[in-house]
């Protein structure tokens, strides 16, 4: 009986992780696609220097930060994968979402200041400690850059 209960708990956790995680992922991607289209006019580049024509723009630091956590299903799936090696695709989609969400937040911040462009964009990531190596892990993805605001915009 004990083995059965253990198995039941495990399967329940797994199913919860799968269904909630899957639902959240679908919804998130839908929103990412939509907002990426809306914010296409705030150009993001990794260029270090502004174009000569933008030399008179004001510049400001903008950033976008996201903290994400994996679900139980992804942990188990990735754990099994790490025994045999290969792409950890369950984490890939999660981090892809985090990266794009961080960029979107940075763009939103730039847009709020009237910027037309963000240059020198960089990414950073760090593990949110406290559960390092144990249980479900979470991490932060931070995107930051220099927003270029046209002189016409009052500030």
């Amino acid at each position, binding site marked *: 009986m004990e083995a059965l209960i253990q198995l039941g708990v*495990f399967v329940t956790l797994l199913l919860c992780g799968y269904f909630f995680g899957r639902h959240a992922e679908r919804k998130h991607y839908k929103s990412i696609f939509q907002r990426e289209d809306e914010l*296409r006019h*705030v*150009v993001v580049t990794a260029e270090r220097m502004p174009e000569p024509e933008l030399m008179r723009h004001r510049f400001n630091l903008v950033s976008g930060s996201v903290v994400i956590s994996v679900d139980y*299903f992804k*942990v188990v799936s990735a*754990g099994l994968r790490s*025994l045999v090696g290969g792409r950890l695709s369950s984490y890939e*989609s999660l981090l892809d979402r985090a990266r794009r969400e961080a960029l979107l937040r940075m763009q939103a911040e730039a847009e709020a200041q009237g910027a037309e462009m963000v240059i020198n964009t960089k990414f950073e990531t760090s593990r949110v400690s406290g559960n390092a190596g144990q249980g479900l892990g979470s991490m932060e993805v931070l995107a930051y850059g220099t927003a270029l605001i046209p002189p016409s915009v009052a500030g």
Partner: protein
Amino acid sequence: MARLRSNPKLPEGINRSDEHPLKEFAWLLAGVSLALVGAVVILSLLVGWLAPAIPFRWELALTDRYEQSLSGAANESRTSQLEAAEQAVKDLGASLVATQQAEAALLPEDQDIRYHFHLLSESTPNAFATLGGHIFVTTGLLRQVHSENALAMVMAHEMAHITQRHPVQALSRGALFQLLLLMVTGGQGMHGVSGVLGQAGLLTVLSFNREMERDADREAIDLLLARYGHLQGADEFFQKMLALQGDTGWAQWAQTHPGVGERLSAIERRNPVGTGEKPQLTPLDARLVRWQEADAIDSEATGHRENAASQLPLL
């Protein structure tokens, strides 16, 4: 060069794959569990083959240290009736051993094997055999039996575990399984994975466990036939279990023991068909009957008798 006026739309599916996560998961789970189950099966078979070769003396060396503290702790607050009942259990055990000694086919391979019988004050009806030839019968079980045959069946079953060296096999199997799990997961915080693999391996180990119980039942039946010539009354305790907890049926693969129904029919099959007249049951030892009576009065007075259904027998 004209500057970028709008972010380009990048193609999807480069940084992430569109493959359904369940598909990957199913493949991984099937592959890894199959490998682990295979490894556990091989190890368990090796254990079944090698563990009985561990000298019984080594088991004794392990258990002798605990024996003193055990008997010391057990002796406090025991009534004389309980002492007498324990002696009766020991006597029944000794006569079962004598029967076993008389039958060459029933003799254990290891000549060093000795059996020690104990009575545990514990309300859950249960009996178990552990390392060093120690066999424990609980008072909860004594309450449930009404003939010597039923008690002898339970004790013969536990004796068969010892004869076939099951405790040391179970110990080796468990230790090897834990070691294997630790090796595969690296002993780090891979909780999810050790969860999956633990389940897969545990279910495999349990199937070996059920096989051991069947073997023990088979040998207990042989011993009972040698002693009484029939199996009348041997099923009394199993019938009680069936009435209390029902047959496990579909959930059997997750149990440590085979289904009660299966065990009952194994007894039924081996019971020699009588020539009309039912063989007589051997009554319980007078000391056990006295203990039962004293216990019944005692529990009525204190109202301590727990609901029988709340304590499922384990055996």
